[in-house]
């Protein structure tokens, strides 16, 4: 830790973690001094749209910022224009149909590359213009945070090849790991059957098409899987065992299956047989999802309740006190 980081750590710092979903904004406030947590509060606000924070949220966060000189605001990036590839070579993005000039890419410990479109990062800056923003973390980084904890925890048995899933309110982040190395990474929005190409980024549709043409492959994949008949266990439109799933839960299973199919079928990925799934659950998913995955995909599923906002705060603290 640098001297500057060490000094900052001894002062009172406030960390605000935000997850902005389609209709709500979840905030966690943690005030820390050194290693001691002085205050923690969680709040959820209704918002009209993901693209516009309500006055209530803006006032609340600005009020918190006025209380503490050192306030760090962290956003969980849950927009579709992002991904992770199993190499840190930025030139490799081209192989995955990603234009490196249109994304911000970050190499994570030399193990893999996470990227987010400049449009999405600009969206974050624009949306938080009245508040300010310090960190924007990829969901892959958050999922990796939980994976590392799992690997370091000797009480948890994990396979050599693991499918990790981070379930947040409106999104699904999937990483297939071989030990600590990434084999496959994918991100889905499960809030609605949203066609990515119609996402409103506040710019002309033509520009969006031009900017986001790299995700078309994934989009086609999802389009092809819209019919649950394509998903093992969803044949004939009526799953066996008559487990009832809500619309969003169905999308959870559908996109997870799509990710698996992509991993097995796409030659870009080093294909390995997956037996185990570990779900990090921030929103208390329907237990039937786990049963579906176990019964229909024949996967060994385990889940753990986690707090993404806590992870965001921990990641922010590492960045601030590095």
């Amino acid at each position: 830790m640098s001297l500057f980081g060490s000094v900052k750590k001894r002062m009172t710092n406030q960390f605000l973690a935000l997850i902005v979903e389609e209709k709500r904004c979840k905030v966690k406030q943690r005030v820390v001094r050194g290693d001691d947590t002085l205050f923690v509060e969680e709040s959820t606000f209704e918002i009209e749209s993901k693209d516009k924070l309500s006055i209530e949220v803006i006032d609340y966060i600005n009020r918190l910022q006025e209380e503490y000189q050192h306030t760090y605001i962290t956003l969980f990036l849950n927009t579709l224009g992002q991904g992770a590839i199993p190499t840190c070579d930025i030139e490799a993005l081209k192989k995955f149909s990603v234009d490196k000039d249109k994304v911000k890419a970050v190499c994570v410990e030399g193990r893999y590359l996470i990227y987010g479109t400049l449009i999405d990062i600009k969206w974050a800056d624009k949306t938080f213009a009245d508040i300010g923003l310090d960190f924007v973390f990829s969901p892959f980084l958050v999922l990796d945070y939980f994976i590392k904890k799992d690997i370091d925890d000797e009480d948890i048995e994990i396979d050599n090849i693991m499918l990790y899933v981070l379930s947040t309110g409106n999104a699904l982040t999937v990483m297939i790991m071989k030990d600590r190395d990434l084999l496959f990474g994918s991100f889905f929005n499960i809030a609605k059957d949203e066609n990515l190409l119609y996402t409103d980024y506040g710019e002309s549709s033509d520009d969006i098409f031009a900017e986001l043409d790299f995700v078309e492959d994934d989009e086609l994949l999802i389009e092809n899987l819209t019919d649950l008949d394509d998903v093992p266990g969803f044949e004939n439109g009526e799953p066996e065992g008559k487990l009832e799933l809500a619309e969003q839960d169905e999308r959870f299973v559908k996109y997870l299956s799509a990710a698996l199919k992509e991993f097995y079928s796409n030659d870009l990925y080093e294909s390995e047989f997956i037996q185990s799934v570990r779900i990090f659950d921030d929103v208390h998913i329907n237990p039937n999802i786990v049963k579906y995955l176990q019964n229909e995909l024949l996967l060994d599923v385990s889940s753990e309740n986690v707090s993404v906002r806590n992870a965001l705060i921990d990641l922010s603290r590492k960045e601030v006190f590095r």
Partner: protein
Amino acid sequence: MYSFTTPRKKSLIDKITWLWLSFIVIMLVALSAFGFFLKYQTSFYEEMLSGTKLTNSKYSSSVSNLDKELKIVDMKKALNNEVRSSNALLKASIKNLFDLVPDQITLNEVVMKKDALFIKGFTPTKDSYKLLLEPPLKSIFNESKVTFSFNGRVGKYQFESMNTINELLK
């Protein structure tokens, strides 16, 4: 840095603390400057004081020299006065002596000392001396001795009178 954005720059201390710290720093600088000024002034005055002390000691030694000279002058003055008074006394004594000497007796030599008087001269007769000069001499001096010798060339007695007194001029 794993964030897609760069965090906002944050000052280690807030604006109020900045103001306080700035004020304290300015005050410290001002006080230090004032302190240095005072120190400079003090050393300046100390130098001036040591210079003055040096001058003072010079003047003191000069004063002591002057005192010595003054004492010498005083002594000279006293000596002068003493000489003057001695001379006056001597003059008076000589005058008295000459007043004592009658017309018949002539003096050839007079030696006056502090406590002695030697007179050499001619007297027509021994009695003239003994009657006219010896009595006043004896009244002044404790001891008065006289020797006579006849001088045929002059036809008078040459006398040599030695008169002594312990405290002639007192």
